[in-house]
């Protein structure tokens, strides 16, 4: 198993009001899964992705990634863990604005100090895979939303992480682009064995998932395999 959440809660304070975004959640994600976290807004989907992605820390409970207790790691170690073992796809794409599509896709490999020739080979292969090889010199503001998200997926998978966490990856793109992105994620999962965990509240997206983890008010409502 790649991810295990054991009794995880995340509580925020909004002024004097306590908001329980995740409430005593137990969850495991296995290698090669294509799973969706679904539920209405405020059900805790993004918070769970942030906790698994070592971007946030639980108020109580423990998050394990590949067997490592994330609460035992310092900021630097968490950064390196994100760099080496986790791929991120954000709802708002979150490409680095001053870098080109190629440089964005290359970013994590550069952080890992992968030698330039190998880096170039791997980046071009993955950009080819996501259909963005012809746009390598474009900066994010010169790409459509769908194109930016494809570059973001390339960036997330190029370093061959243990898991790719995608937060509403199709929320900001049109139907056609959403289908392309889902096709791409499915293909990467099927052909390359990349483990995906994505959040969504879109029924069409849910239908593509291999497993649906339904959330409500930060709690697990249902966990079902999709045939």
């Amino acid at each position: 198993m790649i991810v295990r959440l054991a009794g995880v809660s995340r509580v925020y304070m909004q002024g004097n009001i306590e908001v329980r975004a995740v409430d005593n959640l137990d969850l495991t994600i296995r290698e090669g899964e294509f799973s969706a976290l679904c539920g209405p807004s405020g059900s805790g989907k993004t918070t769970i992705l942030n906790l698994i992605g070592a971007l946030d820390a639980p108020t109580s409970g423990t998050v394990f990634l590949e067997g490592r207790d994330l609460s035992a790691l310092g900021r630097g170690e968490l950064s390196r863990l994100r760099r080496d073992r986790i791929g991120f796809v954000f709802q708002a794409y979150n490409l680095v604005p001053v870098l080109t599509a190629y440089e964005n896709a290359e970013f994590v490999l550069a952080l890992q100090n992968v030698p330039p020739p190998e880096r170039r080979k791997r980046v071009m292969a993955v950009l080819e895979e996501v259909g963005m090889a012809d746009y390598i010199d474009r900066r994010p503001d010169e790409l459509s939303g769908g194109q930016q998200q494809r570059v973001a997926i390339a960036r997330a998978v190029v370093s061959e992480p243990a898991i790719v966490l995608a937060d509403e990856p199709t929320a900001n793109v049109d139907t056609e682009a959403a289908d392309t992105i889902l096709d791409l994620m499915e293909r990467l999962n099927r052909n390359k064995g990349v483990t995906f965990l994505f959040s969504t509240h879109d029924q069409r997206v849910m239908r593509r998932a291999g497993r649906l983890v339904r959330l409500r008010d930060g709690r697990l409502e249902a966990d079902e395999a999709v045939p």
Partner: protein
Amino acid sequence: MQLNMLAWRSLSRNRRRTLITGFSIAFGIFLAVTFTGSGDYSYTSMIDTGAAMGQGHVSVAAVGYNARPALSRWLPDPGPAMEIARGQAAGVYPRIMGQGMFAAGARNVGAVFLAVDPAREHAGHNYFVRSIVEGELFAEGDGRGAVIGAGMAEKLNLRPGKKVILTVTDRDGQLTSELFRVSGIFRTGDRAADSGFVLLPLDRVRRTLGYGTGGVTFVAVYLDDQRRVNEVAAELALRLTSRQDVEVLTWRETQPDLSGLIAVDRLFNYLLQLLVGMIIAAGILNTMLMSVLERRRELGIMMALGMTPGQVVRLVLIESFWLGCLGVVMGIVLTAPWFHYMSQTGIDLSRLIGQEYSAAGVLVDPVMKLRLYRESGAAILAAVFTLTLAAAVYPAIRAGRIMPVDAIKEK
């Protein structure tokens, strides 16, 4: 990760912000060069002028002469000291300086006289010789020529060829007189010097004062570069340790008023530069901080993707390093034409301060010019560079503390 590459991307793709910061660094260099250059020029000019008014950059004098310049304090044999000084200096001159009464007809004035050897004297090391406007320097050391200031010439109604009588106390305190004939008139522009200073032939004055054939009150030592004063004075003092009758003095001791004036002015100059430096640093700090705050989301994304806080700190510092480099290049480009003009031509301030502006008894050049010593230039560049890096430390630390989970939510 090639943080350098990333820093360059950030700088080159935010050209406006980069150029604004680069310009503020360049402006700092411009101001620092102007302040330091004007100090380097004016202090050197004043020190050299002060030295050329008689006592040199370094002076080897009879013990006690400087504290109380009486003609009874003299050096009978300055030869060895001159020999030692010659190896260190651009010019070494045996001189006698004292006070006496000069009379012509029924009129008389008190004045300082400087007895010089015309065969050795070099106009570059004697402000009065190079200021002769009528007649010439006497040619013979034992002759009776005298070069007087224009003010004295007016007071005593003298012109070249006329006689003037010096009355002075000799080495034994006895009053004695000598007749001289005016060979030239100088005009320095300084009223006190022009009305109260006289050049006389060394050998004749020696005879008048009973100094024998080689006696002087001091040996004036001139250097090519006034900054070597302490080094040369220390070397001379070391080599003259066996001579109990001499003391080695620098211009700071022979002209304490000038030294004090320069020290105070230099202090104000430094304070002004410090103030300007702080303003420039605040500008850079502000720009860097704004740059970090504007890029919170961008930096947050990078951290989310795996960049460590330490790498983010280094990224901001590297950006600041390259900004410093850019600022230095821009500063050189901006300052070079100004410096060239100011070092060659300068700005004539005589309308503001007059032609005859003197400070601590030394004429000040009314043309404001710039001169920058190599070490001053290096110090400016190093200081600006250090300021740029120092100003980036706080923004860099702020950048390293960004929490990616919060930053990536920002619009």
